[in-house]
């Protein structure tokens, strides 16, 4: 390597020490926060457990309970009426609303 080349090489490499630090743009943080807000996951709602599946299941359960209750109620009233008729037929009722004894 001749002297001139060596000298130029040394001078050129020394330029690296002369690179001044560069400040980041003042809008850098603002731009980045905008990106962050776009990409951040949505904050979960207070009633996040109340999913559509949960709602359908609850509705189904309420319907089943209502239908069951109605069936039970009707079947029960038939029995009560039959018992009352039977008791009346055979004068087994102890209380009576009649003014006649």
């Amino acid at each position, binding site marked *: 390597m001749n002297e001139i080349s060596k000298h130029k090489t040394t001078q050129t490499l020394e330029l690296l020490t002369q690179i001044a630090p560069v400040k980041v743009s003042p809008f850098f943080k603002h731009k980045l926060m905008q990106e962050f807000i776009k990409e*951040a996951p949505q904050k979960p709602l207070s009633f996040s457990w109340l999913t559509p599946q949960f709602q359908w299941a609850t509705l189904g359960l309420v319907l089943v309970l209502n239908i069951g209750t109605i069936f039970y109620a009707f079947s029960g009233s038939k029995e009560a009426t039959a018992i009352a008729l039977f008791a009346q037929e055979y004068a087994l009722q102890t209380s009576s609303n009649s003014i006649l004894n």
Partner: protein
Amino acid sequence: MDEKEFIKKLVAGNQVAFGQLIDAYQQKIFGTCISFIPNKEDAEDVAQEVFLEVFKSISKFKSNAKLSTWIYKITTNKCLEFIRKKKTKKRFAFMQTLSGDDLPIPMTPYFVEINHPGILLENKEKTALIFKAIDTLPAQQKVIFTLAKIDGKRYQEIVEITGKSLSSVESVLFRAKKNLQKKLANFYKNHP
């Protein structure tokens, strides 16, 4: 705030924590990016990608390492990825010398337009030459030389970022410097 607490907040997507992260690291990350990519706009774009990657991957961060080291590793990888993508867009023809894989400094335009406010105008051409020469170094030499001599990182920081031993870093740096001297000397011999 304890680093573990801070990381928990980042994992939870806490906006304030992310803002604090940017405040603490924006200048350092940008400084590293512009050391690899001597173009202010490109360096800022890459720095943004670094922060977004940190945000996306923070749940994978293993707390046995330092947060700063992990962030610098991401920065280095993003810079190298940017350079690789830019170069595949430009078509270069490298001529290999008879001596083997010693790549000369390519005379085609540099793959990024040098737009570095820290470089004086009169030095721009010669500095572009150095960056071109650095780009022809093997990847390890390129990274370690850039972190040490342009970004101004301490050897211990480079050890943590690269995962190499101190003696290995010193040895790679020495070889990088020798390679650059050889390339520049050849260039000046052929272009007096």
